[in-house]
């Protein structure tokens, strides 16, 4: 039934056996045991499943595992650690952003790719870059504070 796929996730090589059409999300969560990306909609509408593939923020819930190829996947856990946090992670802690926190992958993984490529963005640019991501608890104001803080840290 399944085919074998090699996945490079957070710098480690993994092998999974799966249907080619199975979304990457389930390979990460169920086969590799990574709880970072979450199932929010399965429709690429919310961002809860976001990971980076070769540096680009993608929605793993609609990305077939067969489409990943030898691309390098980074999840939230691979972005930084408590000892070496990504500026966005540090800013999120400083600003105490999340409430339920289930949406966090979308905002941080998308903003990380955006801030890497856009130094000193305006608030409007930040909002545009994050448009479409969902946060149901309504932490939008805190998210913007944190992204602006991280942008300043990343200079």
């Amino acid at each position, binding site marked *: *039934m399944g085919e074998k796929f090699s996945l490079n996730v957070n710098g480690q090589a993994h092998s999974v056996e*799966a*249907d080619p059409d*199975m*979304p990457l999300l*389930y390979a990460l*969560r*169920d086969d590799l*045991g*990574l*709880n*970072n990306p*979450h*199932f*929010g*909609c*399965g*429709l690429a*509408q*919310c961002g*809860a499943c976001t990971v980076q593939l070769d540096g680009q923020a993608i929605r793993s819930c609609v990305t077939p595992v067969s489409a990943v190829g030898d691309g390098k996947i980074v*999840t*939230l*856990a691979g972005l*930084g*650690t*408590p000892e070496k*946090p990504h500026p*966005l*992670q540090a800013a*999120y*802690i400083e600003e*105490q*952003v*999340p*409430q*339920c*926190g*289930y*949406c*966090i*992958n979308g905002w*941080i993984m998308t903003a990380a790719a955006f801030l890497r490529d856009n130094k000193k963005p305006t608030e409007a640019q930040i*909002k*545009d870059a*994050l*448009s*479409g*991501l*969902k*946060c*149901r*608890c*309504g*932490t*939008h*104001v*805190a*998210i*913007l504070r944190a992204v602006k803080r991280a942008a300043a840290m990343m200079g």
Partner: protein
Amino acid sequence: MTRMEKPVNFSRRGLLKAGGALVVSVGAPVSFDFARADDALSMSATVKPALTPDQLSSYIAVNADGTISAYFGKMDMGQGLFVAVGQIVAEELDVPFDRVKVFMGDTATSVNQGGASGSTGLQEGGKQMRVAAAEARRVLIDLAAQKLGVPAEQLSVDKGIVHNVAEMAQSVSYAELIGGRYFNVHLDWNGKYGNPLYAPGKAQPKDSKTHTIVGQPIKRRDVAPKVFAQQDFCTDVKVPGMVHGRVIRPAIAGAVPVSVDENSLKHIPGARVVWNQGFLGVVADKEWDAIKASQQLKVEWSDAKPPFPDQAALYNHIRKTPARKREVEGKQAGNVDDAFDTAARVIAAEYEWPFQSHASMGPACSLVEIKDGHVTCWSGTQKSHFARSGVAAILQMPEDNVHVIWTPGPGSYGRNDADDAAMDAAVLAKAVGKPVRVQYMRNQGTGWDPKGPASVHQVRAALDASGNVIAYDFLSKAFSRVDVDTNGSKPNDTLAGQLLGVDLKSGDGFGIPAESYGFANKRTAWEVIPPLLDRASPLRTSHLRDPVGPQIHFASESFMDEVAAALDMDSVEFRLRYVKDPRDVAVIKAAAEKAGWQSRPSPRRDQTGDKVSGRGIAYAQRNGTRVAMIAEIDIDRRSGKIWVRKFTVAHDCGQIINPDGLRMTIEGNIVQGISRTLWEEVKFDNKNVTSVDWLSYPILDITETPDQIDVVLINHPEIAPSGAGEPSSRPIAAAIANAVFDATGVRIRRVPFSPEYVKAALS
């Protein structure tokens, strides 16, 4: 191991003197000799007393390392409640905050304090933890007095160490006194479970003037685990042998399966069908296979009659349907009907609010394992103790054999789909004999969660010839807030129970405006109508954040502005003229001052062109909390699009435990409330709900976020804390509606204020 075959009586002191280790097997019935109840040593026990509300050990434990465990029968939905509870416990015990760990909502370690409910986390839950911690400190001092041979009055506590104030070197730590053992102290329990549970000891809590930890902006410790992906949500829990389940809902609400072709799944490894009456689900070893199975299973459904009216007819349906129940609630005054007969002028208006969905960030998930006659359920439910009752009932097992482990879910704002998921997982786990993890799909999370009720509100005021309000009459007519109950303790309140054919018991309830307008004649009432579909309805209604508060206060506070405008009065001045409660007056004044409110009547008459701006105020109470807020908006008359540029909120919830947590809670309420006001409406056709994802149930986008939310916190350390999780939700829609009127002179009386609706209203 010493195995106790039958109940044994023995003396605590004798045992302690004997000095030998006693290990009692779990569950062995043991009763102590309480003859020495006054003896300090009898206040502790080696074996944990029964987990009952009248035992101090049910709330507080001192661990061997001197840390404190606080067992809390409520839980945090992301606003940092557990930090505030930790602060209260640390304060009363005189230990550093970092030494307290709060364990929430686990039915094996906490008593039923009602779960997350009605913004009572601190109001009721914190109150109980405060008296429990105070009693623990009293007992610890008594133990220290005995140990040190010094009267209790001569002892003080600093950082968990009890000192003799006359000779500070003489000291003993909490850990040395009781660490690793348990309190064995009875509390004066009021016999109630849930939110009203209260069980004080003999100790008086501290005077708020002496507080040093309560009131501090201590940060949450769950943020770092979340940003480093180290926290497990209930969606992340796995157990050996677990399979994945999905449930299948009908295309026409009310239809039930009449034939199911299991062969249609034979190409999917491990796929199994669970079908019992209206309940239909599948399991498979792999999650993706379970999803495919749920999509590919061939099912023939019963020929159900489409149960719903046209959506356009919803509000007329509410108006014309005979009420199932009517209640006049609150403080009534005078004789309203007589006063209207004498009125020089009557102002009347009607407001409409749609069904709304919790639309939690992720659809609900639950894992249930049934093993050796015991059930373990991992759930993001807001009410784990009640969920235990529900799971036990649907599995026909004793409650004592069910353990619900609350694990943070993908967002929760009331009675969402979490309790349904727990029941579905239980049914599937029992049927297949394996642990089953169920997660709903997005269309089920939005389409099939219990909805916030749709409503119509009829309001009128009588004015005398001088323009005084002499009578006020407020009536809500609506679907019930408790068509299904606010918790999952009874199968009839869950989809699984309803699909399995249990007897239905739809509840009646709504509410009235909470304010202090001192009109001489006043009547506030509500009527509820039956649900559109009795059984397993995607439009069944229950509690959604600040249940019925946004609806009611959209109407009542919009209407106050309508009266003020009719009298050509400034909206703040109008409110201050009639509002009686001093704390209400204070929040209104504080909001107006912070926002730089200039006195003038609405609407503005100085704007031309398509882009106009306005401001609006609204205020409300909620169970002791007062909140006033001012919305400042920009509106494009051509597109009908509203941007809420700034919100100013003045908030008084009595004593503030943690100002930063409170501020963030209010910010979240404001953004979510703007979303509900501008965008949120559950759409449906004759057959079913058609709001099934984020396109068909849009919420506020980050590009629409206010530039500024100013929060004025009014602290009353002398007043016990009331709630903050919801009160600031309720005046938001009215504040925005009043700002739209101020900007345009047009009154919007129906939520949501979508661009299409506003544009049509303006043209």
